[in-house]
């Protein structure tokens, strides 16, 4: 049954991706005959839709993994400050003009920022030999405020160009999507999804608690570390592609549990697909609703997702608390 639902999800996601490529303020025919249409399709639409898809996939899968390893239904890269840490690190690199790894510099900085932030959150949440979910969450919220404040400080004192770029890291923006970063984003996101999906049994066991995970034959700390690396890769990729977009990581895993159950072996890929589909729809709406004005995609994801999320919270088969 869940396999059939997974196939339906794949089909729906593909359909949404295709719609996002060809629809918008200007409808482009798949046969794109004119030079303008070709330009729109290959230079604007395709990179933008690919970035939305990859970012949504990364955020959805990261949320599913984080909610499991932290045993907290509120965990997502945004709330835990991992996104803002990645953003701050990437923004510092861009404004500081760092290019030591060429076009790979920004994704690498975002990845390192995500890992360092996650590490700090982990240290703050560690007490008496274990991770305390409430401490983690509070530490993440605190760090998130701090990093956002530092980004705003940078905005206040930087040049116009610096300001424009720093805005991107704070609010997320798909309109600046460009081809050169897509290969790195694709590689990071795919490695992150594969890594976490291959550790999905361990994630299921960690959801029950470290002692259960140990009893079922896993080494909880090692498994949590591997899964955390996968989150760092995916969040770093997402931020380096289009800045911070919140809510998808929180929302999508809960929706996917409702449709496909809680087994992480299904939930991680399903959350990736669902996250990708939601951000593609949100982006399509954001650029089509009031042209030529573009609304922030993060706003649309929240407006679409929040009421449904609140409805799901009322159902006990979605959340056991």
């Amino acid at each position, binding site marked *: 049954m869940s396999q059939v639902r997974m196939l339906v999800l794949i089909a729906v996601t593909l359909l949404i991706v295709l719609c996002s490529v060809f629809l918008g303020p200007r409808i482009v025919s798949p046969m794109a005959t004119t030079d303008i249409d070709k330009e729109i399709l290959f230079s604007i639409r395709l990179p933008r839709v690919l970035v939305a898809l990859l970012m949504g996939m990364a955020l959805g899968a990261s949320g599913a993994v984080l909610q499991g390893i932290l045993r907290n239904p509120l965990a997502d890269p945004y709330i835990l400050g991992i996104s803002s840490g990645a953003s701050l690190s990437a923004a510092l690199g861009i404004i500081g003009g760092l290019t030591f790894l060429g076009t790979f510099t920004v994704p690498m900085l975002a990845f390192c920022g995500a890992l360092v932030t996650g590490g700090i959150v982990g240290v703050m949440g560690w007490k008496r030999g274990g991770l305390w979910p409430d401490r983690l969450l509070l530490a993440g919220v605190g760090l998130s405020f701090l990093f956002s404040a530092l980004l705003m400080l940078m905005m206040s004192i930087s040049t116009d160009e610096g300001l424009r770029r720093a805005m991107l890291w704070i609010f997320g923006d798909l309109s600046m999507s460009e081809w050169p970063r897509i290969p790195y984003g694709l590689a990071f996101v795919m490695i992150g999804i594969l890594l976490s999906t291959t550790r999905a049994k361990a994630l299921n066991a960690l*959801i029950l608690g470290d002692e259960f995970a140990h009893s079922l034959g896993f*080494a909880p700390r090692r498994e949590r570390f591997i899964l955390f690396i996968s989150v760092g890769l995916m969040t770093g990729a997402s931020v380096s592609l289009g800045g911070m977009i919140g809510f998808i990581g929180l929302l999508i895993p809960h929706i996917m*549990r409702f449709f496909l159950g809680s087994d992480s072996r299904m939930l991680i890929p399903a959350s990736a697909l669902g996250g990708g589909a939601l951000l593609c729809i949100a982006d399509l709406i954001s650029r089509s609703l009031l042209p030529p004005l573009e609304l922030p995609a993060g706003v649309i994801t929240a407006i679409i997702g929040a009421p449904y999320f609140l409805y799901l919270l009322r159902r006990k088969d979605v959340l056991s608390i």
Partner: protein
Amino acid sequence: MSSASKPKILELDGVSYSYDQNRSVISDLSFSVGEGAFIGLLGANGSGKSTILKLGSGILKPLSGSLLLWGKSLHTLNNRDRAKLISYLPQTLDITVPFTIKELVSMGLYPYDIPPAMTVDDALDMVGLRDKADAHLTDLSGGERRRTFIAMTLLQGAGLLLLDEPLANLDIKYQIELLKLLRRLKEQRNISVVMALHDINIALQFESVILIQNGRIIASGDPETVLTREMVKHAFDVNVEIKGSGTGGIYVSYENNFL
């Protein structure tokens, strides 16, 4: 405390443990668990019962002493091989993700590449929950939740169950139900059980009890021998009367303390 004739599954010898350098939680602890044993670990809050079970299952590593599982050093065993021999159930089962009963029980297969002969349905049959396979944990009573996790350990194939206060927060009806299930599993599948518990009267139902105080064993053996007025006073700091039940058994009365 196994009988001498039965093979020893778990042996702790001179085990000590401390969570911090200033205070030793477990000191020089030695005991063994034989095949098919049914042992109650009894002691006041903070006496070290949970720590002993975590040491026995390998979750905690002792500072000194040795732990043998089927004659092999517990901490040199591969994680998955260990999981096929021993299973630990913690006291709290607070799970925020809505797994179905079937999903939870099937996690017992995780240590295996090639699934064992027993299926999820077989395990659910043994604990009487087959008709609730698709229900969520929140739909079940406290007793049924415990049985769900027992089914998981059955599928896991472990011959030794270490259970941390499985009777806590259960109505007496569910306590009896769970104890009967565990006894049945011991009889039918020769599974050994070591269970931490508080209730002295429930401890009288065990084949053997180990009485713990401040991380040390102060008495062990047949419950009617161990649970004397003096020993209970020593371990729990309460005055009790040991009374005959009129049916050959005994029970512990606390009524003096309320006078």
